[in-house]
């Protein structure tokens, strides 16, 4: 197997991946890693699941508040961020594909675009947060809205908004770290069609982060 890797991937010898001593073969190791990562993603969904439940509870308790408060969120900015994240998911998928098909030169630029989108998302989010904070919407002790249209219990809406998008933002930050990590490895030509597990897993993670935003966007910005 080592011969095949060396020929097909053009890997430097020291980066060759060794299958763990407790796995039967590379296929066994790869599927085990993937199964483990799916389970990890399940825990992520449940982590956010709790917050979505809180959202459902309070939206059904205060439907008018949610409707009025959501008017203060910027729909264009949310929409742009949605597009940015979907694009980044697309380039991430392309990067995984490039690794699978051994097109090593394409991996790094595709990951770079993904990374750029992730940063862009955070920059847009920063300006959104800034505007909210200036209007006194930061929840908790700092909640001091001063617009005439502010509904009662708006703090609950903005509390959930900041906690949910904030936790999502932390996941974007985590994703930035992970993508940078595989970019460094890809630059060293450590991935090939023989072994690209980290690319695959970071890809799965990034799609989940994207997916969570795809739920957050309509739930907060597009309340009918």
């Amino acid at each position, binding site marked *: 197997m080592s011969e095949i890797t060396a020929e097909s991937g053009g890997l430097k010898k020291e980066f060759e991946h060794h299958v763990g001593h407790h796995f039967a073969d590379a296929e066994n190791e790869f599927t085990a890693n993937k199964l483990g990562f799916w389970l990890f993603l399940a825990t992520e969904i449940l982590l956010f*699941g709790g*917050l979505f439940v809180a959202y459902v509870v309070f939206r059904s308790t205060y439907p008018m508040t949610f409707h009025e408060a959501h008017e203060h969120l910027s729909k264009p900015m949310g929409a742009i961020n949605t597009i940015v994240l979907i694009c980044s998911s697309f380039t991430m998928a392309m990067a995984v594909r490039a690794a699978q098909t051994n097109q090593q030169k394409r991996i790094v630029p595709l990951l770079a675009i993904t990374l750029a989108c992730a940063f862009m998302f955070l920059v847009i989010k920063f300006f959104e947060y800034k505007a909210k904070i200036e209007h006194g919407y930061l929840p908790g002790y700092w909640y001091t809205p001063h617009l005439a249209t502010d509904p009662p219990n708006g703090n609950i809406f903005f509390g959930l908004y900041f906690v949910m998008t904030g936790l999502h933002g932390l996941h974007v930050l985590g994703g930035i770290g992970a993508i940078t990590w595989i970019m460094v490895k890809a630059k060293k030509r450590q991935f090939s069609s023989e072994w690209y597990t980290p690319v695959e897993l970071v890809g799965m993670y990034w799609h989940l982060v994207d997916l969570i935003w795809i739920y957050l966007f309509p739930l907060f910005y597009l309340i009918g």
Partner: protein
Amino acid sequence: MATQTLDAHRPSVSYLDAAKGWKNWAYTLDHKRIGVMYLIAVSLALLVGGIFAMLIRIELFTPGKTIMTAETYNKVFTLHGIIMVFLFIIPSIPAALGNFFLPIMIGAKDVAFPRLNIASYYLWITGAIFTLAAILINGIDTGWTFYTPYSVQTHTSVIWMGLGIFVLGFSSIFTGLNFLVTMHKLRMPGLGWFDMPLFLWAIYGTALIQVLATPVIGITLLLLIAERVMHIGIFDPALGGDPVLFQHFFWFYSHPAVYIMILPGMGIISEVITTFARRHVFGYRFIAFSSIAIAVLGFLVWGHHMFVSGQSEVATMVFSFLTFFVAIPSAIKVFNWTTTMYKGQIALDTPMLYALSFLFLFSIGGLTGIFLGALSVDVHLTDTYFVVAHFHYVMMGGTVMAFLAGLHYWWPKMTGRMYNEKLGRIGAVMVFVGFNVTFLTQFVLGSQGMPRRYYDYLPKYEKLHQMSSFGAWLLGSAFLLMTIYFVQSLRSGAKAPDNPWGSLGFEWRTPSPPPVENYDTPPDISIGPYDYGKVYGKPAQADAKA
């Protein structure tokens, strides 16, 4: 790997002798060493939690102040609960004994992700450090359930404790995730799901809950911390929030967590009873599937902790109804274990004594659970010592008995040493008697109206409280005795044979203690772990009926 083939015909090195020195332990990736380190860690947690329990029982020896103030008492019972639940019971069987035996039982060399395994151990240590910080900084007095609004208002260290449990949650999730993947991907060739020892089915159910329920307590604690730090108002009615929502979140994890605690114990009982009764387990598939059924049903009954919290009447009735369903798979297990022993050649060694204690005590714990699941009865008994007694019968009479059964059963395999069997049996009897004296009285106290968590009580309860305290001290001395003979076993115990109990479990077909990669030669799986009939011959009478 050329070196390995050279080594193959040399006698193998045991995992204990492989690479000595504390560094080789601290950085180890060997699941057996990690299991042993977990065992030491959770035993220390048990000791600390136990000391808090003794303090509670001393304080309650007389009404009014005995040795501590009411504020201290609140902290002591809270810490007893938190340490026992999050630092001891939840990781005890899966992370310590499961880690050690799961890969051996499926013929694997290690768990699927050894690095994640050691990481989850150090996450446990981190969680324990946070807990220690909480104790040292201000203590915590909310009860282990952290109910809002009090947990938002109290001046004790809720944030430290919350972060600690958040980190412990990760430890638990990673262990569960690791075990699930290991069982799916690393079973030895030819070992089907239904050829696995039943301990593993129990661990599988446990791991499912660990992965799927624990994130919810994580987010609950994050929200609680956000509530304390920023005062967002999600759980605060004054700000439009809902304190009952906290209880829903909390129990959505913490009820399934009860099954994280009991399921692995049930797995041990299946192993111990078959070994010491020399009988094929009765109804393998029923026991296997009942583990999964318990895991699934466990997610649907959290509301029975909240019958008097103000949830809707419809929800209350549905939760009560679903709660009764959990009794079915639990009862299947108890009946099947009992039937397994029928016409068996029962040997009353220490592990079996604990397994039998489990059967008695868990049955009492389970049946009193039905009292509490019934709405009208629960309204009377809720928040009394009846509840305290009930969950101690399940958690201590169940899980801790099973843990002790497993610890004695596998001790020779793990350490390569035998313990003093006579002292072991004396200890088991002391535990059984001490436990019942402590907690049977609490059923009576509760049914007479003694509320849980109270510092002071009416004089009429004094006799029963004192009896309960005497029981607790007997229990405490039993643990002291265990510590003595285990230490003695490590220092000067007789060398353990590979299979001291004559068990057919796969783990007994490798040397004691096992070699680094678990087996020198793969075990012959044509004889299953319960084929006692094939090996020892069937009892004539039972044969005719079957």
